[in-house]
């Protein structure tokens, strides 16, 4: 008999993800890889105009193309799929017009789908689409957020009265008094460029309606299958249980794939209309004009400070131009709402006033994209802090330290009502300064300046909201699940199968859940198989967004693991005729708790429980499939925190910014898999860098997108990206047993601010400053007065 000395916990271990083997062999199954018998393909006729009435649609020539099965217009689809309105009750006063899967009456953004051509191949569908004749009557476009509410600006949806989607005023303390008492008042206006997620796998959906059973099965590259199931059922008028959504491998999502898209709803409606599978895979040009856009904001910020660097108060005015519709069902108000609520959160000053206006535009609809609002909030806040330090002749590190919410202040409620259980601003700062050898870098920068080499260092402290509770969407009336579930089944072989309601898009959800389950039960992590993303199989859950996977999915998995462990021990005790308390499970063996002596292995337990229950006491019932759910109730969000540092060199002759290196120290609570967290940080940071330097969806005044290809829209590529060093501090949440918080978005939250500050640090001795993103060579040269 062997002995197993101690329990094995995988929490904190960088377990290699098992699904890498499959993906490395080219055996991933992405939605476009799925083929069904008699499958058709759809291509959409999209509006070339930002705003135009649809006077007529002539599809005769399109229908005549060999291989075209159907051409459907918005009017024809209304009886199959109902429209939707992207508002939530808790955003008081929010308004938006009804949006339909295919536009009816008029198109309101360049790229809006107005007709669908279904054919035997995508190529033929495109042939058909090119032959659909739409009679357009162009209307004036609303493309400038600054003038969207002017009396002279056309109202996109007259029934709404104006172009205001949502407005909000927040106030804490007495900002007016703070500004009166200030030694110095700093004012600055920041312009953040619109950009988008550019998932490498474009949006894809394959809808398969079986008219014999009236059941709809949808393969969807998506983050929230239960949400899609609910919406399809309601809008296609099908019973919820007859709609099944399956997420295969998803090639990146970042929030882009958590929203309702008219073309995807149309694809499902088409399958219902035709009784055949219909596939839609967005091509890259379509993606640029139809994936949700994000982060087009003009933020005016004012900071009131004392000469010693104490921040007394702040005022923020945020104007954001979205699309012509607020996106369903999460609404396009969340980004602006979070921007103004998050901005002051790192610091303890109480006097804060903020206003937000979210206005409609004839541009692609805008909605949540990774780190929603955070990058803007902290780019603004931290740029003001750095500027205050510079103008007061103070050290930017000390100004931050001086104003942080400190350890003794927790639990703490922010100026805008966010509850912080406990954050670690001082610790992450300390670790960052050490890791980066910050003071040495400053000295080197100063020395190089004398030689005409312009380097800059930029800090960005941030908080990150993760693990949202029901108040995030549910209270507003959205059928978006804030709870999540986990099912664990002991197989007869003694291995575990686990089904979870959180989903996988490459971040390592499967592995993270397996580690938690293996640790909770006492088995080897290789013996846990995790299934995600099938509404018929997974427990009802929310999917993955707002960095909820570890905090909610992980906690549900922990509780389920503990429960099934107890059930396994009950079976073991029944078999061994002892007490469950005398036993333990270690690496898949039932052992004596005290001695570690192996008494039984799980395969044997499985055999008996499933095939020989006749050998067990008559009144004993094995329960070896267990489900537990979890919803965070004790705090609205499990906030995390971190700080980033960007080191850049600006070529002041060309305006080019070279990224020398980047650091991030983050605190996401108890870490399950350090390498996965590191890699989430790195990927997220590079997305933030993309926004800071490269990515920009540029519209002309007529609402035409000018940067709609991969040549014109610049995503970060390997040669320009820096090494990224990641450090960790762990402040577990006490509100959940696992202590896990989220980590997926923190990198993006702080990166743009760090880069902006670094560039401005490099430019400061030359009397130049930039307050727009992306920071292009042109912007830098203009700031330097060179152009």
């Amino acid at each position, binding site marked *: 008999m062997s002995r197993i000395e101690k329990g094995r916990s995988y929490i904190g271990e960088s377990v290699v993800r098992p699904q890498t083997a499959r993906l490395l062999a080219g055996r991933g199954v992405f939605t476009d890889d799925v083929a069904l018998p008699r499958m058709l393909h759809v291509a959409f006729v999209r509006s070339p105009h930002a705003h135009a009435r649809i006077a007529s649609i002539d599809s005769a020539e399109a229908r005549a193309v060999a291989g075209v099965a159907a051409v459907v217009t918005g009017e024809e689809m209304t009886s199959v799929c109902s429209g939707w309105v992207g508002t939530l009750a808790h955003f008081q006063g929010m308004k938006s017009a009804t949006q339909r899967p295919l536009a009816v009456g008029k198109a309101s953004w360049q790229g809006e789908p107005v007709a669908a051509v279904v054919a035997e*191949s*995508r*190529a033929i569908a*495109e*042939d058909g689409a*090119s032959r659909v004749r739409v009679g357009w009557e162009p209307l004036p476009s609303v493309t400038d957020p600054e003038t969207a509410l002017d009396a002279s600006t056309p109202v996109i949806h007259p029934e709404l009265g104006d172009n205001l989607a949502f407005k909000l005023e927040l106030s804490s303390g007495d900002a007016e008094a703070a500004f009166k008492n200030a030694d110095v008042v700093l004012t600055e206006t920041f312009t953040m460029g619109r950009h988008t997620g550019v998932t490498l796998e474009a949006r894809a959906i394959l809808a398969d309606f079986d008219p014999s059973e009236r059941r709809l099965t949808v393969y969807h590259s998506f983050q929230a299958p239960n949400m899609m199931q609910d919406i399809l059922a309601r809008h296609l008028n099908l019973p919820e249980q007859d709609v099944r959504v399956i997420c295969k491998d998803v090639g990146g999502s970042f929030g882009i794939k958590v929203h309702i898209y008219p073309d995807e709803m149309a694809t499902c409606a088409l399958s219902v209309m035709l009784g055949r599978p219909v596939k839609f895979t967005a*091509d*890259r*040009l379509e993606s640029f004009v139809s994936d949700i856009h994000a982060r087009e904001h003009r933020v005016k910020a004012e900071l009131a400070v004392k000469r010693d660097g104490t921040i007394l108060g702040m005022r923020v005015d945020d104007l954001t131009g979205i699309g012509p519709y607020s996106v369903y069902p999460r609404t396009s108000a969340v980004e602006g709402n979070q921007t103004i609520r998050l901005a002051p959160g790192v610091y303890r000053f109480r006097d804060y006033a903020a206003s937000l206006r979210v206005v409609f535009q004839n541009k692609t609809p805008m909605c949540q994209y990774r780190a929603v609002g955070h990058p803007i909030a902290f780019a603004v806040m931290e740029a003001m802090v750095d500027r205050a330090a510079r103008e007061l002749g103070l050290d930017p590190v000390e100004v931050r330290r001086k104003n942080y919410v400190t350890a003794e202040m927790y639990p703490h409620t922010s100026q805008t009502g966010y509850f912080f259980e406990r954050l670690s601003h001082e610790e992450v700062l300390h670790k960052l300064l050490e890791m980066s050898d910050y003071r040495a870098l400053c000295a080197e920068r100063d020395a190089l300046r004398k030689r005409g080499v312009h380097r800059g260092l930029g800090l960005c402290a941030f908080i990150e909201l993760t693990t949202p509770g029901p108040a995030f969407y549910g209270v507003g009336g959205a059928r978006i699940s804030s709870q999540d579930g986990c099912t664990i089944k002991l197989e007869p072989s003694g291995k575990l199968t686990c089904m979870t309601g959180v989903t996988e898009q490459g971040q390592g959800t499967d592995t993270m859940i397996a580690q938690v389950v293996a640790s909770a039960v006492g088995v080897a992590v290789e013996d846990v198989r995790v299934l995600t993303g099938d509404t018929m199989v997974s427990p009802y859950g929310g999917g993955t967004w707002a960095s909820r996977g570890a905090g909610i999915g992980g906690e549900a998995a922990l509780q389920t693991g503990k429960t099934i462990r107890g059930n396994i021990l009950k079976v073991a005790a029944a078999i061994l005729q002892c007490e469950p308390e005398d036993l333990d499970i270690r690496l898949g063996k039932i052992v004596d708790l005290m001695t570690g002596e192996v008494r039984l292995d799980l395969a044997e337990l499985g055999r008996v429980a499933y095939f020989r229950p006749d050998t067990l006491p008559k009144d004993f019932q094995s329960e070896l499939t267990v489900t537990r759910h979890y919803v965070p109730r004790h705090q609205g969000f499990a906030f995390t925190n971190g700080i980033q540092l960007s080191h850049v060199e600006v070529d002041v*002759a*060309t*305006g*080019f910014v070279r990224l020398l290196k980047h650091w991030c120290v983050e605190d996401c609570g108890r870490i399950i898999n350090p390498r996965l967290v590191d890699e989430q940080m790195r990927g997220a940071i590079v997305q933030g860098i993309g926004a800071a330097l*490269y990515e920009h969806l*540029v519209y002309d005044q007529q609402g035409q997108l*000018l*940067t709609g*290809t991969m*040549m*014109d829209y*610049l995503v970060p*590529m390997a*040669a*320009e990206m820096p090494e990224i060093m990641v450090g960790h501090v762990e402040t577990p949440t006490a509100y959940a047993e696992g202590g896990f918080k989220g980590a997926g978005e923190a990198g993006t939250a702080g990166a743009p601010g760090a880069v902006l500050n670094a560039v401005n640090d490099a430019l400061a001795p030359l009397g130049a400053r930039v307050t727009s993103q992306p920071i292009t*060579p*042109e912007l830098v*040269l203009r700031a330097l007065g*060179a*152009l």
Partner: protein
Amino acid sequence: MKPAQFAYHRPASLDEALALVERYGPDGRILAGGQSLVPALNMRLAAPAALIDINRLPGLDRIGLEPEGLVIGALARHEAVESSPLVARHAPLIAQAMPHIGHRAIRTRGTVGGSIALADPAAELPACLVALEAVVRVAGRGTRRDIAARGFFRGIYTTDLAPGEIVTAVVVPGIQPAWRSSFAELARRHGDYALVGLAVHCRVDGGAIGVARLAFCGVGATPVRASRAEAALSGRRPDPGVVEEAGRALDADLDPPGDVHGSPALRRHLARVLLARSIGQIAG
């Protein structure tokens, strides 16, 4: 993004190819590397009735020395040119420019002839040929022509090719001793089309620039020979003052366009910077 339908021909000889080119006229497009044509087809920006695939035409990919100079066949892949010892020796400017052209997977298929015939204003090769005062060899049915590179590039995506003609080779005249070259470009990302690029080919006489040939790409409809800047440098040592003067003279040479990637002012400025850096490096 699937192309519209087209007929496909794969001629086995140059004569067959030329016959097809003549037959289809503007409704036919030549398919060489395809690295620029196929994206256009995919986006339906081009919808020809037929593609004439010349990739298998024998002998058009040869790189060799002839009395007139270094001959690079139209079908020579960028990657072959990049790794050719003959090009390194006899047209170092081109060798320097090659790594800037897209990425490896583009260079294995893209061809010299294709790049030249496309005449993208931001492309590197046309600027190099203009700086080297190379000759473009062209063939039509029963005709052969040699066109000086400078006169070959007429406008955006416009060359001196007459209907029915295709590029068959470029000829780079032999390089005399004391000639130096450098290629540099400024691009946001490695492999992107240049915001501004500069091909310099000049004779250095004991520390002074004897003769300068400066061909910019990305600053106009075609490669631009900056003749006033060249004159400002000619016969002089490239001290900072001289280089600055050349930079000012450059302003009169250039009338750059503006687009989402940069204003005319940006391109002017970057051209000046590139000039200063290239000359500094070449004569230093």
